[in-house]
């Protein structure tokens, strides 16, 4: 097993990886940009090294800085987490060239599966159906392809998983602008202008299967996750098992995922994503060659630590368990807590989380990237934490999630907590009746109206009374020179007069 692992990431996932490393007795080394100095993920690791300026391109995306940190820390392996360089084949290759272990698939697999074209070819070889689509960097060719697929189509960067920057184009006249903007984001986020077009299936669900491969053709699955609840094509609530799969369809889906993993001679943890049409047919979307944000729901229903499995596969070159050792029990559901204003177009927020309180209850897990007083920098994905609840059945899990979200408090930065709370208590979620567009199509208007209703008189009374009864250092009586305070250095926490 490895002695020292460098975690090439930040926030909740870096902290979560450090936790497993500590349990396994492996030294963990965090990295941090200047914006993350003192961040929770650096406090969770055994050591932390600076890697550059706040902009991702100057730090978390800078392969040479990460390798240099690994060298300084004496690391023998690098865990990339998700996002950043997790699906960058050149980085995986550079890690191996430096004589370290990349905790993930081979660079070749990252490249093949990260390229939609070769991934789709793989699926066809494995006998798994794919969604009609096209790929390329030439705007004119993409325009033609979109028309032949038939609108609506989905436009996104070919590299990098997830729904970031994904756009739905309904009308032909919007196609040019959408391609232009997607191209710009693809270049800035992934350094590659290649785009991917896909026929948009209506009222579909997003269901994915967690796979683990030994790199030699052996593979198992850890059942599915249903990630249908999305806003702006980004997952926001995920669960396992899917509320709509019967055992026969579950079997067909997991069989398809294992067939893909075997065909790819896949190594380590991956996720085969599928669209599930209302008629029950499923279509392969892509394989994410990394740990998924929503992996905790799989951990909750299987009782397995996926980061530990990743480390064991990477160190031992074999799967530490057989398919029949993977036993599913009960139901788990995760809500992603983002610094974003759900009532105003999900605009990302930043600032300082002045006061944070996480729920603590049986069958509730919180993977958090911040504590009270921590900064939420503008530079990164605004995920703050994940709240995961499990139970003997889906209803119990959802009830626990709703209660846990009630008990969550984040003050100082606007979050999607009100949105998550409303979602967890909605009838459609309780009944499992939704598709990937349902939030925007049916849920959001009602939520926004609620969110924009006037605050109760008591809330205003409390705010005004607090002003009078509590002392907020720096919060009141600013001079003109301080008129534009830096949100990252404002202290802004109340103290009781006489105690401070």
């Amino acid at each position: 097993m490895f002695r020292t692992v460098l975690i090439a990431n930040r926030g909740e996932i870096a902290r979560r990886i450090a936790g497993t490393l500590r349990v396994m007795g492996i030294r963990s080394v965090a990295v941090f940009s200047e914006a993350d100095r003192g961040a929770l993920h650096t406090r969770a690791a055994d050591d932390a090294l600076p890697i550059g300026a706040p902009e991702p391109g100057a730090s978390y995306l800078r392969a040479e800085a990460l390798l240099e940190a690994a060298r300084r820390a004496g690391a023998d392996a690098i865990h990339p987490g998700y996002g950043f360089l997790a699906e960058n084949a050149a980085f995986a290759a550079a890690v191996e060239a430096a004589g370290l272990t990349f905790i993930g698939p081979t660079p070749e697999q990252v490249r093949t599966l990260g390229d939609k074209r070769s991934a789709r070819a793989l699926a066809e070889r494995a006998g798994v159906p794919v969604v009609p689509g096209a790929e390329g960097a030439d705007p004119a060719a993409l325009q033609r392809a979109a028309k032949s697929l038939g609108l609506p189509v989905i436009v996104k960067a070919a590299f990098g998983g997830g729904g970031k920057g994904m756009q739905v184009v309904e009308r032909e006249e919007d196609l040019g602008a959408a391609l232009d903007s997607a191209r710009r984001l693809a270049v800035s986020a992934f350094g590659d202008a290649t785009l991917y077009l896909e026929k948009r299936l209506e009222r579909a669900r997003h269901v994915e299967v967690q796979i683990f491969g030994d790199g030699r053709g052996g593979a198992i699955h850890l059942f599915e996750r249903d990630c249908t609840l999305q806003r702006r094509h980004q997952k926001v609530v995920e669960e396992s098992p899917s509320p709509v799969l019967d055992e026969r369809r579950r079997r067909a889906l997991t069989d398809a995922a294992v067939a893909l993993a075997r065909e790819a001679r896949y190594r380590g943890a991956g996720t085969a994503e599928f669209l599930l049409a209302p008629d029950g047919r499923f279509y392969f979307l892509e394989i994410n060659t990394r740990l998924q944000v929503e992996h905790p729901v799989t951990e909750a229903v299987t009782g397995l630590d996926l980061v530990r499995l990743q480390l064991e596969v990477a160190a031992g070159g074999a799967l530490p368990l057989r398919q029949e050792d993977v036993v599913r029990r009960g139901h788990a559901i995760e809500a992603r807590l983002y610094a974003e204003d759900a009532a105003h177009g999900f605009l990302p927020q930043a600032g300082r989380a002045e006061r944070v309180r996480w729920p603590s209850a049986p069958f509730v897990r919180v993977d958090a990237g911040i504590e009270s007083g921590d900064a939420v920098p503008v530079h990164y994905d605004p995920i703050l934490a994940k709240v995961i609840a499990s139970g003997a059945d889906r209803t119990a899990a959802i009830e626990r999630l709703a209660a846990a979200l009630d008990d969550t408090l984040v003050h100082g930065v606007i979050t999607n907590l009100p949105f998550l709370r409303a979602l967890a208590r909605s009838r459609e979620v309780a009944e499992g009746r939704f598709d990937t567009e349902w939030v925007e199509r049916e849920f959001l208007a009602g939520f926004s109206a609620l969110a924009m209703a006037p605050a109760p008189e008591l809330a205003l009374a409390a705010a005004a009374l607090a002003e009078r009864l509590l002392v907020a250092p720096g919060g009141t009586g600013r001079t003109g020179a301080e008129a534009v305070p830096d949100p990252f250095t404002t202290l802004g926490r109340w103290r009781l007069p006489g105690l401070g």
Partner: protein
Amino acid sequence: MRSAWRDGERVRTVEIEPLAAGRYRVVVDGVPLELAVETLADGRLRLEGADGVTVAEVTAAGERRFVRLGRLDFVLRREDAARRGGAASQAGGLEAPMPGLVTRVLVVAGDAVRKGQPLVAIEAMKMEHLVRAPRAGRVKSVVARLGEMVDGGVQVVELDGEA
């Protein structure tokens, strides 16, 4: 003591009048409440009114106040501060909607613009947002500079006739 608060699109006023022994008369938008107020050891406020007891937790973050009442949260903004960016906001979107990097500046001072025309692009966390003209008019000045990091609520463009 009178204060004004931005609550979403609204401006609301609160008047506080201390009565005897920790009791206050609080008038919110003309609606009077009589509250017995106790500051708890952890800084929360216990408010006892005609409808019962509520424990409130108020956190200051710059000019914003995060207020927790029971299991609900509300965000208010002190109106003196809200006025700075808020006036532009009411006039229609000439402020940065979020903190971010100014990636494109599409107009210069003196440009005539039509309603809805993109003026400035701001990018944060892989999302691009266009600040558009809320109405037809002429650009008086461009406050935002290309490549600059701006806070949410900061004015980025000034249209003719704006304060």
